[in-house]
């Protein structure tokens, strides 16, 4: 038993090791960035935006990665507060659980800006994000137009109950609801995951061989769906639209394998996060919400 406890302690130490940024001169601005995860391309891109904008402005960064665990992020934010950064940029794992983290930062006089998702607290200075409902609508509109207002569609949904899943579904269903000829044959979750996206699409193609278009609520699932479509020999027969504009998905669109992806531009979100932080620290007032406009990336986007 004692042995087990010791090993648990060692493990906990290993797991809790955070990625602490470099230490520069003392009087530079320090911004703490608490990411919900850095294990998927979307947030890796966002971190690139944050890093490059920070380097340009000569801001010191402290970055943590909560690996999608709200409890872990809460304790990471507590650790960050003890460093007394000038500002906390928070990409929260969960909108409710992180309320106490935001309030603790506020108590320590550290302003908080949320990015990508927000936290349900009036202590949040401003929220920078993409308009997922509008993105879902753009995807629905595009599919309806590609099918000339008539055809069968299926939707691959993200993690059920996440705000991205709800909002993207809402926008998409609103848009295709305006066309009587468009039928939503099935909507099934594939948890924002590529393997599941492939398996679920394979199964749905068995049940509905007459599918004309697939909307996946992120690119990972869309790329999985492409593999299933390929295996069924239905390339060029099914319109595939993803979301997030990950680099691999953009490549697939450029090569004509995938039809479109909604660009929520995580990179721009990251850059905007640092820019807004600096504006605030320079005494400017910020709106309570900054939404990055969404663009649909299609093959036309690459024709130049």
């Amino acid at each position, binding site marked *: 038993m004692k042995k087990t406890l010791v090993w648990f302690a060692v493990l906990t130490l290993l797991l809790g090791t955070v990625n602490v940024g470099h230490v520069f001169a003392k009087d530079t601005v320090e911004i703490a960035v608490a990411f919900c995860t850095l294990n998927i391309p979307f947030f890796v891109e966002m971190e690139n935006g944050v890093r490059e904008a920070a380097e340009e402005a000569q801001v010191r960064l402290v970055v943590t990665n909560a690996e999608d665990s709200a409890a872990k992020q809460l304790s990471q934010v507590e650790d960050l507060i003890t460093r007394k950064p000038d500002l906390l940029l928070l990409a929260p794992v969960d909108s409710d659980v992180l309320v106490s983290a935001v309030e603790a930062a506020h108590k320590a006089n550290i302003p908080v800006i949320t990015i990508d998702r927000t936290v349900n607290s009036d202590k949040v200075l401003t929220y920078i994000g993409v308009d997922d409902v509008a993105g879902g609508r753009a995807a629905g509109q595009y599919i309806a137009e590609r099918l000339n207002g008539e055809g069968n569609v299926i939707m691959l949904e993200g993690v059920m109950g996440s705000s991205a899943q709800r909002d993207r579904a809402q926008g998409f269903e609103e848009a295709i609801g305006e066309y009587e000829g468009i039928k939503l*044959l099935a909507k099934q979750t594939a948890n924002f995951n590529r393997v599941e996206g492939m398996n679920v699409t394979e199964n749905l193609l068995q049940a509905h061989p007459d599918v004309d278009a697939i909307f996946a609520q992120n690119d990972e699932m869309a790329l999985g769906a492409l593999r299933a479509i390929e295996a069924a020999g239905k390339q060029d027969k099914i319109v595939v639209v993803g979301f997030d504009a990950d680099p691999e998905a953009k490549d697939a669109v450029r090569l004509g394998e995938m039809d479109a992806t909604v660009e929520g531009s995580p990179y721009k979100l990251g850059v905007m996060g640092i820019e807004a932080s600096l504006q605030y620290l320079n005494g400017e007032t910020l709106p309570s919400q900054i939404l990055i406009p969404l663009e649909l990336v299609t093959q036309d986007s690459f024709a130049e």
Partner: protein
Amino acid sequence: MEKSFLQKYGILLVLLLICAVLSFLSPVFLTASNLINVIRQISINGILAIGMTFIILTGGIDLSVGSQVALTGAVTAGLLSSGVNLGIAVVAGLFIGGLIGFVNGTIITKGGVPPFIVTLGMLTAARGLTLIYTGGRPIYNLGTSFRFFGAGYMGGIPVPVIILGIILIVSHLTAKHTVFGREVYAVGGNPEAAVYSGVNKNKRLVQVYTLMGFLSAITGIVLTSRLGSADPTAGSGFELDAIAAVVIGGTSMFGGEGAISGTLVGALIIGVINNGLNLLNVSSYYQQVIKGVIVVGAVLMDGYARNKQTKLTKSSVEQSQA
């Protein structure tokens, strides 16, 4: 005592029952193309679950298989995309898998650390190595010849299914008819007796964990090939499906009792449920509840069938004695 029909085949009957219900509810379910589809889908979990059967037969557990899948897939893909020869890339992936398993087994036996802890540590460490190696980004553009392992066909049968079939037959024969197989059962069934009767317990344990790493690598290569891309998040949660298949298939978590054939049935039950729920377009909110209920229900029915059989045998013995 010979096991009765129900004791041996209870879980197979549960699988057939689920299939019967699904073919009644969905006209597509029983078509040849859907059945091939299901078997191709379970080949990933099936290969892992076979390795996990050996582990659980020794009374151990390996929580790190999902991370092993991700790391071996990423290493193979990384080498391929940097222009390394296909054969070398695949062998390197297999080597890394075997090495991780060997490390797991060695720490468990030499360090005396419980498998749960060692493999829990490896779960995060190997995932971390994958993220470092890939920089958090998927590796793609792997060339068309590599797609053979996951997306190819031989004689009309998908290659992953053929790979699963070969591993299944070899593992079944190994478990039933070799010294290695008998000693694995002995180590899990009664470790002390096994040691007294001359079994080198530690050697067998290291071999079993190395075998698991090797099978994880095969899974990683097949999965990466199917997707045409190595995703750093690939394989997360795979350990749970593999363990579930083994346990549904009747292998005891305490070790020493179970069979590879049961594990195949367990993997099929999980695969058929996932497929059926998609075919019937069951609401995603209800799916998780239904999956949970069916899995526990299947094991309950199996246990009930076995118990009843045991009681019947007992009472018939008593009667004959009276």
